[in-house]
């Protein structure tokens, strides 16, 4: 099946749960397992939280774009902000690294995204924003059995 959607939301923490629910609902036709659903909801939460805390530094005039597309059994999710950008993407992806230790961040966001998804791609430029693209392949086991 093929489908896509895109929503825009204010960079407010209230919208983190909204973003999770939107994507969970959108991918429900793929009949995801409980584990897959948890993984998707967790990575959405991580990326949207990053946009709010790091991209916009809690300025809720900021806008977060969430787009999701389904192509056969592949789900691609894009989370975009127009905030300050990440100074050093490689450093940001290190497990336990956080640029805001005073906020009691665990520094596990990108590690979780890497672990729960099949592919992760981060584009960031100073002052222009960050786009995180995540890909997950569903129903891999069924396909293997079918072969």
């Amino acid at each position, binding site marked *: 099946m093929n489908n896509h959607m895109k929503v825009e939301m204010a960079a407010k*923490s209230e919208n983190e*749960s909204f973003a*999770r629910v939107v994507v969970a609902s959108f991918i429900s036709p793929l009949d995801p397992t409980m584990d897959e659903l*948890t993984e998707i909801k*967790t990575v959405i*939460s991580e990326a949207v*939280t990053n946009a709010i805390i790091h991209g916009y530094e809690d300025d809720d005039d900021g806008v977060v774009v969430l787009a999701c597309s389904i192509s056969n059994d592949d789900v691609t999710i894009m989370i975009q902000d127009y905030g300050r950008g990440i100074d050093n993407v490689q450093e940001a992806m290190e497990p336990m690294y956080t640029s805001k230790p005073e906020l*009691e961040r665990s520094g*596990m966001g990108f*590690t979780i995204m890497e672990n729960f998804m099949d592919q992760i791609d981060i584009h960031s430029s100073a002052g222009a924003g960050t786009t995180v693209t995540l890909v997950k392949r569903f129903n891999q086991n069924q396909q293997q059995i079918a072969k």
Partner: protein
Amino acid sequence: MSLVSHFEQKEHVLLIRLVGELDHHEAGTLKVDWEHYLNAGGIQHVIVNLEDLTFMDSSGLGVFLGRYKQVKALGGEMVVCAIQKPVKRLFELSGLFKVIQTEATEIDALSRLGVAS
């Protein structure tokens, strides 16, 4: 779904029951309330019952890590019980189980810390 946190003191143990979803939006309030109880005195150990915590992300991990440091400074232990699969995976991934103890039930956790339930 939001988060509801129940706090209860049993002897020298702070028992917390978390119901709902713990994300960045909910983490701030939980942290403030949790710190308030720890700072009030008379508490050494913390038990967190996660039976009804249906979702958690890395913001939740940050809150646990921060309170673990506080409890450790009090010379106490942090125990989580009835942890569900989605939350358990995050604890495993972060290595939190190396410092936070785990028990199957709230009764097991209380008896581990010497509190008669």
